[in-house]
């Protein structure tokens, strides 16, 4: 039987990659009997959902072309000045 500490690792791992059948079975057994770890599993999933919800509005954002031009120019100037100093 997994301890809660081990189960919490598996819960995190499952968020990123599929567990092996052995790991899945062990975690499933543990969750069946452990309300705290079920709670933690829910928290980890919500952490993911909340992160997604929060970042969604900015996901397609990009710098204005005019801003990019200004930044490019700035770096270009720095490079030019350095060339002169050399």
């Amino acid at each position, binding site marked *: 039987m997994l301890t809660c500490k081990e189960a919490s690792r598996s819960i*995190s791992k499952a968020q990123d990659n599929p567990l092996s059948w052995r790991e899945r079975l062990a975690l499933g057994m543990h969750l069946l009997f452990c309300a705290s*770890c079920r709670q933690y599993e829910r928290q980890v999933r919500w*952490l993911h959902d909340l992160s997604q919800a929060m970042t969604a*509005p900015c996901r397609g954002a990009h710098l204005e072309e005019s801003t990019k031009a200004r*930044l490019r120019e700035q*770096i270009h100037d720095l490079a030019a000045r350095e060339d002169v100093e050399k």
Partner: protein
Amino acid sequence: MKESTGPSARYAPEQWVDIYGDSLFRHALFRLNGNRSLAEDLVQETFLAAWMGRSGYAGTAQEKTWMFGILEHKILDHFRQQKRHPQVSLDENDNGDEMEQLLFRADGRWALRPGNWGKNPEQLAENQDLMEALQRCVGELPETQRTAFVYREWYGEETTTCATLLEVSVNHLAVLLHRARLRMARCLEAHFPQGETT
């Protein structure tokens, strides 16, 4: 030196704006709750700092991670000046697992049991206080954990990509993410609206 792994290319400063501009800007927007002008300012400062520091940059980190690191420091500086995020942590020392020791008893059972966050996560996304708490909690993570968490959970990068960007093994990335999630869950819980515990 390992040169074969992934996109370890370094670009000429003249190319930075086109290569990194949008993704740095997006990261700043995420962290600054959509404040465009501030995000632009910090991206500009990042490029300047990168320019100044580029000769000292040994190339031990991926260039992208290096740039993000600079930006992240600018963001944390901003928070610090605002005093809204007083507990910002720049603690790099996350090799220990104090969090696990705190959260679990010696026999591996929860010392502090996870609280109940209610039943409707969709509604939580509309809770502005909670979104700010999420930002604050991310800021309080140790630096490598924060980078791992942000790449993975915010940008949805594959674990192999995250590991390459952070230059750690996939197994170590899993450890970082696990610790970050434990901390995030615990931190958010303190800010949670229905803060009832089981």
